[in-house]
C-alpha cells in the first residue's frame, strides 16, 4: 500500500515537473520571439518620434491607400497644448483639446488618401514653436499645417493664414536674409526660415481658403497674411487654419470642421504639386 502511494506521488511530481518544464520552454520561446519583433520595430526607418504609423494609439489602420503614395510629408500642428490652453470657451472647453481632435480626423482622412502624415504633438504636451517647426524642417518635402480655433469671428467660418513677415529687427537678420537669397548658401536664419517659402505658402493658403469658402459659407475667398509665430521658423510651405469660434460653437461642431478641412488641405497639396512641384525643396 505504502509503495503504491509512493509510486503515485512520484508520478504526480514527475508530471508536475514535466508541465513546469514545458511552460518554461514556451515562455522562453515567447520571449525570444518578442525580442526579435521589438528589435525589428526599433530599426530606424527615417521617421520622427511623432510619426504616426508607430505612435497612433487608434488601432484602426487606414484602408489600402490609393495611388498617391509619393506625396510630400504633411506635418499637422495642433496649436497650443499643456498649460497653454489657447482660446477658451464656455464650460471650460479649450482650443488645445479641440485642435487635437481635429488633427486626429484630418490625419485619418489624409492617410486614407495616401498621404504620409506626421504631427507635432499627439497628446496634451506643448512643444516650443521651434520644436514644432523642426518636425517639418527634418523632411525635404514637407507641408506644414497649423490648426487653430479662434476666440472670436463669425461662427462657422474658417480662415487660412500665411506668414506675413514684419520687418526684420536687426541688421544681422537682414544679412541672414541676403544669405538666404543665394542659392548656394547652406545657412538659414532659423527665425526667418519661412521667408523663402512665402509665395508658395501664400498660394497654398489661397487654394485652401478657396475650398474652405465653399464648405464654410461666410468664410473669405482669399487667404490672409499675418505675422503668425507658428509659421515663422518652418522651412517648407506653411499655412495656419483657424476655425471660428470657440465662444459661439459647440466643441463637436468645431471638431466636425475637420472633414472639409482635410479635403481643402488635400486640394491645396494637389494644386501645389501641379504648379511645378513647388512643395519640394
Amino acid at each position, binding site marked *: 500500500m505504502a509503495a503504491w502511494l509512493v509510486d503515485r506521488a512520484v508520478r504526480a511530481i514527475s508530471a508536475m515537473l514535466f508541465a513546469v518544464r514545458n511552460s518554461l520552454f514556451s515562455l522562453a520561446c515567447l520571449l525570444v520571439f518578442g525580442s526579435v519583433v521589438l528589435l525589428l520595430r526599433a530599426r530606424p526607418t527615417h521617421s520622427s518620434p511623432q510619426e504616426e504609423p508607430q505612435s497612433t494609439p487608434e488601432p484602426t489602420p487606414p484602408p489600402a491607400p490609393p495611388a498617391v503614395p509619393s506625396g510630400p510629408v504633411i506635418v499637422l500642428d495642433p496649436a497650443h497644448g499643456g498649460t497653454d490652453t489657447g482660446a477658451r470657451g464656455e464650460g471650460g472647453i479649450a482650443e488645445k483639446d479641440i485642435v487635437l481632435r481635429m488633427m486626429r480626423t484630418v490625419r485619418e482622412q489624409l492617410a486614407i488618401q495616401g498621404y504620409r502624415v506626421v504631427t507635432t504633438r499627439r497628446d496634451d504636451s506643448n512643444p516650443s514653436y521651434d520644436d514644432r517647426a523642426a518636425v517639418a524642417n527634418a523632411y525635404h518635402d514637407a507641408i506644414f499645417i497649423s490648426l487653430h480655433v479662434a*476666440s*472670436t469671428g463669425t461662427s462657422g467660418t474658417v480662415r487660412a493664414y500665411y506668414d506675413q513677415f514684419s520687418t526684420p529687427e536687426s541688421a544681422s537678420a537682414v544679412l541672414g536674409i541676403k544669405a538666404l537669397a543665394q542659392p548656394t548658401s547652406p545657412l538659414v536664419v532659423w527665425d526667418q526660415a519661412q521667408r523663402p517659402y512665402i509665395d508658395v505658402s501664400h498660394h497654398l493658403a489661397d487654394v485652401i481658403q478657396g475650398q474652405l469658402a465653399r464648405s464654410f459659407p461666410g468664410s473669405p475667398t482669399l487667404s490672409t497674411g499675418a505675422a503668425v509665430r507658428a509659421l515663422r521658423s518652418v522651412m517648407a510651405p506653411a499655412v495656419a487654419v483657424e476655425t471660428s469660434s470657440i465662444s459661439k460653437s459647440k466643441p463637436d461642431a468645431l471638431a466636425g470642421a475637420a472633414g472639409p478641412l482635410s479635403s481643402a488641405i488635400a486640394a491645396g497639396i494637389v494644386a501645389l504639386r501641379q504648379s511645378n512641384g513647388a512643395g519640394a525643396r
Partner: protein
Amino acid sequence: MPRGLKIVLVVLAVAVVAGLISLQPLRRRIHRLGESRSADEQARHAVLAPPISTPTDVTVKAQIFWAAGADNVAPVEVDLALSADPVERSRQLLQALISNPPTEEQRTLPVETTLSAFYLASDGTAIADFSDTIASGLPSGILSEEMAVNSITRTLESNVPGLRRLKILIHGQEVDTLAGNVDLTGFFDLNSVPASPTAAANMSSPR
C-alpha cells in the same frame, strides 16, 4: 432594496434636480457680474487716464480703426484734439483707440490696457509700450490678435505722418507673441504719408 437606501437615492435625485434648476440663473448671475466688472474697469480707466493735451492741439477729424463686425477693422471718423508733435499725437490716438470705442462690440483692445510709453526714432521707427493687460485681457486667436494689431497700426498710419514701422513692447519687454499667436518680435510696417522735415523729432523721449 432596503428602505434607507431608497430614501437616500430619492434625496440625491432631488438634490441633483435642484442643482440643475439653479445652474442657469447662477450662470446668468456670473455673466452679469463679469459685465459690471468690465464697466467698473472702464470707469476706473477713464479716471486714471486723463486726456492728453498739448499746446499745439487742434481738433481734427481722426480715423480710428475699431472692429467692424466680428472679422474686420474699419475706420470711424471722430473729432479729436491732436497734437502736432508725432509722439503726443500717437499717444492721444492710441488712448482714444483704447478708451472710446463707439460700442463695446467694436473694442479691439482690452479696456484695462494702458500705453506706458511711446518712442519715435528719426528714421520713423515707433515703439509703443503697452501694459501687460493688453495680452492677458485679449482673447487668444490669430483673428482677434491680428485685429488688435491692425487697429493700432492702421490708426497710427492714417493719422500720424512719417511713421515707417512700429514695434510693440509689453511691459517694457519684447515678447514672442501678443496672446499666443501673432508674432511681436519684429516690426510692423506702416505705410503712412511721408513726414515733413520737422515733423519727426530725433528719438523723442517717452512721455
